[in-house]
């Protein structure tokens, strides 16, 4: 393997390019019209246009990506996450073109892509699943049959799309009288979002935590699970902050949880990087939720506490290498890591996307801080894609110090021209419930509902005074006004010194 085409954009494309560089492999970028000047294009060795900005016509267009791979002479394809990363058809097309797909087999993607099939695989592996219907509801099932199935599971019930993700095609039913209409609306949403109307029923756990286990698996039967990540801080079923390890998992539970994850992966013959998601209920029981057959957005926090480069291992496994990591070390975290997903969204306006040109940008740095980003001043946050600007990661010896470092890093971030979720995170990291680790998957939505749109950070009178001062000075000086000149280098002095030096040598 010499040359890897990255079928993605943004910060994850840059992340994979960096792994390629570390391994002396040549990275190839693909880009849509609006991404011509994007960072992943500039950092790659070769770059190929694959069509208009709409995802369907570029980053989701299998033929154009395979064509670019052929033209570039790449011998492998990394899908990143999102776009085609969990598309079995894409994995097959890559293989048909004689290229290596850096990810699991198409069969594994298919097996875990259906939520009901994945639940069945977990049950086969002896791992508890959230109580629910073992198969999708029959399209012709009567209202009475559906009601009987729901009664057998117990309320509150979730109606979930079999092909679902991101909360689409999902309905909560508390009152049995609402069940029939929830099934109808979940089916229609699932049909339009995934082209598959199938839904099933699952019990809604009370205040569960979202706990997940990263794993790496090679083609020689080795499966290595990693210390868990907790991703309970979610807004409308989208993760916004992740951390590892979880405050709710003891070493004893960690041992059980990670072996359960490995058992599920082995049951489906999984290879490469993947993540098993669980729900942890208030009683400390965990249940299989689903498997993500790709690298995850939040993979850097695992890297920070284990020292393992997961993308590098994805490439090594795809080359046929054996994993020789020490399994015991992978579930013994060194310190604590937190990731904040910094989005171009206006948190004070209901998290509305805030696309546009980044006028200035200064990223935080320093001890324990990692900023995985593809943003730069002068670049646009396009309207076509997920508006993630940065995955800001803080590592420290323990959780309180990691929180302190994250707060420091958020305070250093300067991004102008677009609104970002930085002020929201400053607020969140000051919330007592978060500081105490008392979070669950509905925590953030509940707090946001109670806040009813109140701004996250309200400037004090002093800060408003400073803002007024700054605006007036900027207006008076103009943006091109003189800068205080640096002390001019004294050329004659240098010459004198050089001459003296010369004399000394004589």
């Amino acid at each position: 393997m010499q040359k890897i085409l990255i079928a993605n954009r943004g910060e994850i494309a840059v992340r994979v390019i960096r792994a390629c560089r570390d391994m002396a492999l040549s990275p190839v970028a693909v880009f849509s019209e609006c991404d011509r000047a994007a960072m992943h294009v500039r950092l790659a060795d070769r770059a190929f246009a694959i069509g208009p900005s709409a995802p369907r016509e570029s980053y989701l267009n299998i033929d154009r990506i395979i064509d670019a791979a052929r033209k570039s002479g790449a011998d492998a394809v990394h899908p990143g996450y999102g776009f085609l990363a969990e598309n079995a058809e894409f994995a097959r097309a890559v293989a048909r073109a004689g290229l290596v797909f850096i990810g699991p087999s198409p069969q594994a993607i298919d097996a875990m892509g259906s939520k009901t099939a994945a639940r069945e695989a977990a049950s086969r592996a002896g791992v508890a699943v959230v109580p629910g219907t073992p198969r999708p509801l029959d399209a012709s099932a009567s209202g009475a049959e559906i009601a009987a199935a729901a009664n057998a599971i117990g309320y509150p019930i979730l109606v979930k799309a079999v092909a679902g993700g991101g909360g689409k095609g999902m309905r909560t039913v508390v009152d049995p009288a609402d069940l029939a209409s929830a099934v109808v609306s979940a089916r229609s949403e699932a049909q339009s979002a995934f082209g598959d109307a199938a839904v099933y029923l699952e019990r809604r756990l009370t205040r569960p935590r979202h706990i997940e286990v990263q794993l790496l698996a090679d083609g020689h039967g080795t499966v290595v699970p990693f210390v868990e990540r907790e991703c309970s801080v979610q807004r409308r079923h989208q993760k916004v902050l992740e951390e590892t390890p979880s405050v709710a998992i003891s070493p004893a539970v960690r041992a059980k949880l990670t072996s359960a994850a490995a058992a599920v992966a082995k049951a489906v013959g999984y290879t490469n990087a993947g993540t098993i998601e669980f729900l942890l209920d208030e009683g400390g029981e965990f249940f299989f939720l689903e498997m993500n057959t790709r690298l995850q957005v939040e993979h850097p926090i695992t890297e920070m506490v284990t020292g393992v480069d997961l993308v590098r291992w994805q490439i090594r496994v795809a080359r046929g290498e054996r994993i020789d990591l020490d399994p015991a070390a992978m579930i013994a975290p060194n310190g604590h890591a937190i990731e904040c997903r910094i989005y171009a969204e206006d948190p004070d306006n209901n998290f509305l996307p805030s696309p546009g040109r980044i006028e200035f940008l200064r990223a935080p740095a320093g001890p324990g801080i990692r900023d995985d980003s593809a943003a730069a001043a002068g670049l646009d946050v396009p309207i076509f894609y997920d508006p993630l600007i940065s995955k800001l990661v803080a590592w420290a010896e323990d959780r309180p110090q990691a929180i302190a470092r994250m707060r420091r890093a958020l305070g250093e971030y300067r991004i102008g021209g677009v609104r970002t979720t930085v002020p929201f995170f400053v607020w969140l990291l000051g919330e007592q419930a978060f500081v105490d680790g008392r979070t669950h998957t509905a925590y953030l939505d509940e707090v946001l509902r109670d806040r009813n749109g109140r701004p996250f950070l309200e400037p004090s009178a002093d800060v408003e005074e400073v803002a007024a001062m700054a605006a007036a000075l900027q207006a008076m000086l103009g943006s091109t006004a003189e800068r205080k000149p640096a002390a001019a280098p004294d050329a004659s002095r240098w010459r004198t010194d050089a001459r003296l030096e010369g004399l000394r040598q004589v």
Partner: protein
Amino acid sequence: MTYEIEIAGRIRRVSVRREGGGFAVAVDGRSFHVDAARTDPHSLSLIVDDGPVPGTSLDVAVAAGASNGRLTVQVGALPIPVTMNGRRGWRSGHAAATAAGPQRIATPMPGKIVRMLVKVGDVVAPRQPVVVVEAMKMENELRAARGGTVAEVHGREGASVDAGALLVVIQ
């Protein structure tokens, strides 16, 4: 030079004149001495002497507002929306429309109208959602900033809209 600067609905009068290599700045009559160093076209490093409290170092940045032509001043992690009304104020044409007059609710991104939640004649409360637009994989509620009566509704549910498309006008 004197500027009228609106922050959070309140007008502040700010005067600036050069003084000893820096600036004498008065905000609503409170005086400061400010040493200002430009660090890039948007950013200033300020060292503020406030009478008995000398040497406060502040790293500030000023950018055009993301949506409606106002400015955003960033002080620390805090973005503060600011409207300039001064004699040499920027974008003074836009500034007048921010606090009074009809609210024009437009979509900041191209997408699809999922639900139109109001009709002409409806009375809306501050922050009430008026239309839901699906874009960037998410359903986004557009809300009224202030209360009022819906005067115009443009676009049907299911219709695709371009960035900047006017959807609702509230008087």
